[in-house]
């Protein structure tokens, strides 16, 4: 008696699962940064074009493959061609890397969430120094939010070489995050449906990359989700819906982020002016209230001419306050979420409420994406009869979560954030491009576009329009190849890779070179997933040759 494959309760659940997977932290912290760097609203032009030309077709392709083959990524690609099982394996490897480091973000979000129930918020004030005569030095040089992030949350070491110990507080939060993920994946397919990544060629490349990674192509998660669909499900409609919702969420998130930037920039600019006014008033014994923001420049000019010696003494301490420079501080990634946003929140009324709401939202986004990642790993494992006959589904899920949690403890060490940046920048980027390229070529040319078209028609009943066929067969692969070549040449030309390290003495980030073993880890990360494809193909070929050699030809 064959056990029926579990199905989504209704198509809406599937759509919500895809949306929750695709809409992740990248929509909140990567897209607004890209918008800011590449011309604001005009970035939307390459973004939308890439969405139509690359995002939607590839999303539809992955969903269609999953729905047609009704298996996780490894099984699906092996069905298309026995030599291509490596593609699925590469997807699983990349998903594994991703799930290892992604959940630490949820751990940090939990940490901030738990600390939001205090008055005042712990990142709003600097702690005092030892003799209680002033604030802590590191906090003074940086800001209270940066101090809380780098010292209290990460307890970051000065460089990647100084590993330090595992910090128990973030480790606890990481364990909690994994328990939450485990609880959600236990209930299987029912749970994941709930709500939540220009003339300048770089603008186009970044738009393409953003669409690519924001939709989560190539991880095998979409194939996994779609494999639980009814064969007659209209995945074309769903592909369009999911990609549109993902993009509109990104755009909405940037609107919010830009208003937060504006608020923070104005606030900081005004504080800076106040500091300069106080400094000048003290140095020149001016009357209180004499210096204001409007007459500051005039008075400065007057003081410079009237008391040149004293003015030149004071000059180095005076910061040049500029609203433009405050606005130009574009930050992405963890810096945006945990420093810039918390700085804005601490200045709002009822800051505890906003803080709780904000980190709860981050958690929802993060856990939604985590569920997709773990589904990408678990579906091939539970599909494989070897493993699922020995262990029940709960044990497999628990084992995967445990292994990932233990490896994730590396990121709770003092140098953890530097390793996190390595994984974030290199674990998924090149490998995914190659994986999706092989996927597209496999479906179009190895399996055959006409055959796939016939399958889809038999399954869903609707014909494939010429648009999808043109994209799959021609445009999207070309685009991916050019992206791949660009990134490769960029890595080669830049020479040695560098990273930003936090200098406690100066209270700011400094650039350092990666040590050789870190470079080796980067190379391993990229190679581990890419090499799966040729190695598995080779292995299958060898096995087939041996089999053909063993069995004598039938008379």
């Amino acid at each position, binding site marked *: 008696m064959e056990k029926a494959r579990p199905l989504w309760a209704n198509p809406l659940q599937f759509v919500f699962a895809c949306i929750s997977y695709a809409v992740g932290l990248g929509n909140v912290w990567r897209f607004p940064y890209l918008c800011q760097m590449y011309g604001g609203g005009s970035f939307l032009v390459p973004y939308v074009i890439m969405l139509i030309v690359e995002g939607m077709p590839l999303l539809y392709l992955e969903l269609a493959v999953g729905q047609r083959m009704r298996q996780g990524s490894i099984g699906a690609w092996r069905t298309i061609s026995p030599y291509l099982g490596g593609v699925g394996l590469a997807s699983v490897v990349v998903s594994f890397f991703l799930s290892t480091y992604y959940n630490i973000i949820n751990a940090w979000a939990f940490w901030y969430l738990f600390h939001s129930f205090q008055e*005042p918020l712990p990142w709003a004030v600097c702690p005092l120094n030892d003799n209680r*005569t002033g604030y802590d030095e590191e906090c003074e040089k940086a800001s209270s939010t940066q101090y809380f992030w780098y010292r209290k949350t990460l307890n970051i070491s000065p460089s990647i070489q100084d590993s330090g110990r595992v910090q128990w507080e973030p480790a606890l939060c990481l364990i909690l995050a994994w328990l939450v993920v485990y609880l959600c994946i236990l209930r299987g397919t029912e749970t994941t449906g709930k709500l939540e990544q220009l003339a300048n060629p770089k603008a186009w490349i970044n738009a393409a990359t953003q669409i690519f990674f924001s939709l989560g192509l190539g991880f095998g998660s979409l194939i996994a989700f779609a494999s639980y669909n009814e064969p007659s499900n209209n995945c074309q409609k769903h592909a369009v819906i999911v990609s549109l919702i993902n993009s509109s969420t990104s755009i909405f998130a940037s609107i919010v982020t830009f208003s937060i930037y504006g608020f923070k920039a104005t606030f900081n600019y005004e504080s800076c002016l106040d500091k300069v006014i106080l400094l000048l008033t003290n140095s020149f014994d001016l009357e209180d209230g004499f210096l204001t923001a409007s007459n500051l420049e005039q008075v400065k000019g007057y003081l410079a001419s009237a008391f040149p010696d004293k003015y030149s003494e004071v000059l180095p301490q005076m910061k040049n306050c500029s609203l433009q420079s405050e606005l130009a501080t574009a930050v992405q990634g963890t810096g945006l979420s945990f420093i810039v946003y918390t700085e804005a929140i601490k200045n709002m009324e009822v800051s505890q409420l906003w803080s709780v709401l904000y980190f709860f939202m981050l958690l929802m986004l993060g856990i939604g994406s985590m569920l997709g990642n773990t589904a990408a790993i678990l579906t091939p494992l539970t599909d494989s009869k070897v493993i699922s006959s020995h262990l029940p589904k709960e044990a497999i899920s628990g084992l995967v979560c445990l292994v990932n949690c233990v490896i994730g403890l590396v990121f709770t060490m003092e140098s953890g954030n530097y390793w996190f940046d390595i994984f974030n920048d290199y674990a998924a980027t090149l490998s995914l491009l190659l994986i999706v390229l092989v996927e597209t070529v496999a479906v179009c040319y190895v399996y055959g576009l006409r055959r796939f078209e016939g399958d889809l028609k038999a399954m869903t009943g609707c014909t494939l329009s010429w648009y999808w066929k043109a994209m799959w067969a021609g445009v999207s692969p070309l685009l991916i190849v050019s992206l791949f070549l660009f990134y490769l040449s960029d890595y080669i030309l830049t020479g040695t890779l560098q990273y930003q390290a936090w200098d406690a003495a100066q209270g700011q980030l400094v650039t350092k070179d990666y040590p050789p073993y870190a470079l080796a880890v980067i190379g391993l990360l990229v190679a581990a997933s890419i090499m799966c494809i040729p190695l598995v193909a080779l292995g299958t070929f060898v096995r087939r040759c041996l089999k053909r050699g063993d069995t004598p030809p039938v008379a």
Partner: protein
Amino acid sequence: MLAYAMRRYLVQETTQISNVLLCNVTSRVSFWFVVTNSFTNMTTIPRNDVEAAIRMNRNRINNAFLLTDDTLQFLEISSTLAPPAEQPRPTWLIVFGVILGIIVIGIVLVVSFGIYHRKRYKNAEKTEDLDDKYEAAITMENRIPCHTLDLKAGQINGVYAAADDDRFTPL
């Protein structure tokens, strides 16, 4: 104010306002001052003593002017900052504990329900398998076990035996 502060510090009742000498008064309400020894009007009290006196009575001085440490500044006398509100125990651990408890209970419930569900399903499967095996062991003919057909008396058709006579139309 300053005279009062010196009095308190030196435990001498003799320092008067006239012992505090001001100079360099600016329009910004800032000035230099020295405190002379009340006994010998010529010598001044050393700086450290004056500093210590001011530190001790800073609060009172501030209150007299309705000012705070931020608005009334004594140059090079850094104020002792009030410590930020210290929580008796880390609040975050409490919230963490609550959430952790909920999640663990949830996991235990879901896992045990899953195991219970699977056991029931397995039992139902087992009984079905047993039925199949039972049927396979006994030779069948038309779903009637063969050994019952060996009765010399023949097979009694249960329909007529069990039937109520009223069911059949009486002749």
